[in-house]
Each structure stands twice: as structure tokens, then as C-alpha cells.
């Protein structure tokens, strides 16, 4: 319940304040969002598997975001930023799909 409220609160704040994204962060924000989504799906799956832990979730959430941003940052410095961010999105997308499949099996048994 509190978690759902937190999600709704974040969305509402984003809609109300409409903040401008600093130029330097514009390349990292979409990657960070995808990484956070991956962390959330992984956490939900772990919860259903009965191995969920708050601390582990929070740490994995932020470390996922940081590592994804770091990979893109290094890619930018090496001149392959566009390709590396595509790679990060592909990998995270695959993880999100497999997590979603596990969640589906847990809840729907299908």
C-alpha cells in the first residue's frame, strides 16, 4: 500500500513541478529509468519467491541506476555512448521480460 502511494506520489510530483532536465543528465535519465524499472520487477519477483529484503531492494535499486548511468558515461567518453546505451537497454529489457515471466507464473500459474 505504502509502496503504491509512493509511486503515485512520485508521478504526481513530476506532473506538478515539470522540472527541466539539466543538459548533462539528459542522456542518462532514460537509462536510469529503465534500470530502476528492472530493479522494481526483480524485487517483485524476489518478493513472490519469498527472498525479498528491503535493504537489498533499496541498494539494488540505486546501484542499478548508478551502474547503468556509469556504463553510458564511460561509453560517451569512449565515443560509443549511443551503442552502449542501446546495449544497456537491451540487457535490462531482457531482464525485465524474464522477471515479468516469473511473476506471471507465480500469480497466474501460466
Amino acid at each position, binding site marked *: 500500500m505504502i509502496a503504491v502511494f509512493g509511486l503515485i506520489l512520485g*508521478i504526481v510530483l513530476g506532473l506538478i513541478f515539470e522540472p527541466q532536465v539539466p543538459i548533462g543528465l539528459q542522456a542518462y535519465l532514460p537509462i536510469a529509468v529503465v534500470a530502476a524499472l528492472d530493479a522494481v520487477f526483480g524485487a517483485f519477483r524476489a518478493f513472490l519467491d519469498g527472498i525479498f529484503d528491503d535493504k537489498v531492494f*533499496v541498494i539494488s535499486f540505486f546501484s542499478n541506476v548508478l551502474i547503468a548511468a556509469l556504463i553510458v558515461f564511460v561509453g560517451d567518453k569512449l565515443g560509443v555512448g549511443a551503442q552502449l546505451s542501446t546495449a544497456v537497454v537491451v540487457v535490462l529489457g531482457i531482464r525485465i521480460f524474464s522477471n515479468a515471466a516469473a511473476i506471471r507464473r507465480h500469480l497466474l500459474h501460466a
Partner: protein
Amino acid sequence: MSQPDPTPGSQEEARRKVKAAFLHPGRGQIWIALALAILGFAAVIQVRVSGQDDAYETMRQADLIQMLNGFSAASRRAEQDIAGLEKTRDKLRSTSAGRQAALDQATAEAQRVAILAGTSPAEGPGIRVTIEDPNLKISAGHVLDAIEELRDAGAESIEFNDRVRVVATSFVSADPAGLKIDGVRLTAPYTITAIGDPATLAGGLTVEQGFVDKVLEDDSRIKAKVSKEKSVRIDSVIKPPKPSYAKPADSR
């Protein structure tokens, strides 16, 4: 997937677990809520950013630099084109301006020369002299005197009897029937029209021992009247003869 399929019993358990977490949240959910709030916030911002139809905003630095290079090369080429075309335009403009100035100068020169040569009608201040000569005593010498005195007084254009223009090549002749200028017979009463300063021209003819005095001396029945006019018009023109012998020579 490597995960083995959960048993049907675990499906019920999973649903129960979700329900319990939803209805009776533990204290640890606050952290989860914070993380999800950040996720929602960032997701909304990102959706907004990519929703703006600014194609360049989401492009990467390297691509933007490449595009910028392309644009600046194109704009350099365009600037070179502009510079070349402007140079051509300036050249054409100065050429045509120079041509126009030369044409204007030549036209003004031609008009001045035409008045002196008698090929163009002329008007301006001047005098009109009327001479009644019942005994036909006016001689070619008198006419030459009149022309000389008018020229001495600065006459710019002279005409006799409204039909004979006096120019550089004019000549006066006389035969028993009367006077001729350039072969055209003049009949009394004579009129002389001259353009110039009216006072000077009139003074030149009426000065003591001048033209008027002389003709009166020869025949007291001659009546000469000199009137100063603000504007007189000389309409007769001559057709300039083509010189057969004289040719333009370089000035030294």
C-alpha cells in the same frame, strides 16, 4: 527460464502474500515507496522530455557535432556564393553607374554645343531689335557690325527675321535686290533676336557711335527700336554641314 514452475499451491500463496503486503504494509515499505516515488518522478520527466518534438534534444553529442559540421560547411559554401554574387552585383552596378554618368555628361555637352552650333532651338533673356528701312539703306556692313557688336556684348544665339540663325559659318552678302545671310534673302523691316544679358546687349547696340547711331547717320528715316525681353525664343535651326576638309585633330 531456469526457474522451475511453481506448484498450484504456491500460486495461492503468492496471491495471499501480495494481498497481505498490500493491506498490512510493514515498516520497510517506506523505503520501497521512496524508491518507487523516485522512479515515478523520473519516468514522468523522461516521458515529457521525449514527448517534446525536439529532434535534437535527445541526440548524442557526437551526432550533433557531425550535423553541426555539415551545417557549417554548407553555410560556408553559401557565404562564399553570397560574397561572389555581391562582388558581381557591385561590379555591374559601378559599370552601369559609370556608363550613365558618361552618358549624362555627353548629353549635357551636346546640348551646350547644339545651342552654339545652332542645331537646337534656344530660349532665354535677350533683346529684340526692330529696324524699319524704307530706303533699303542697310548694308551688309551694317549687318556685320550688328552681329559683331552683339557678339562683343556676349550674345549666345542670334537670329534674323525669325528665320535665319547666325552661326560660326554664317556669311552676309548683298546684291542690288537686298541683303542675304547664308544665301537667304532678308526683307525689311528687319528684326534681330539675340539671347544674352539684355542690358549688355542693348547697351552694345545703342552705345555712342554704335550700330544704331551709324545706321541713323546713313539715313535718318531708318527707325531702330531695341527692346529688352525677359524671355525670347529662337526657333530657327540650321542643318550642320558635314565638314569636307577639316578633321578633328588630337589636342596638343
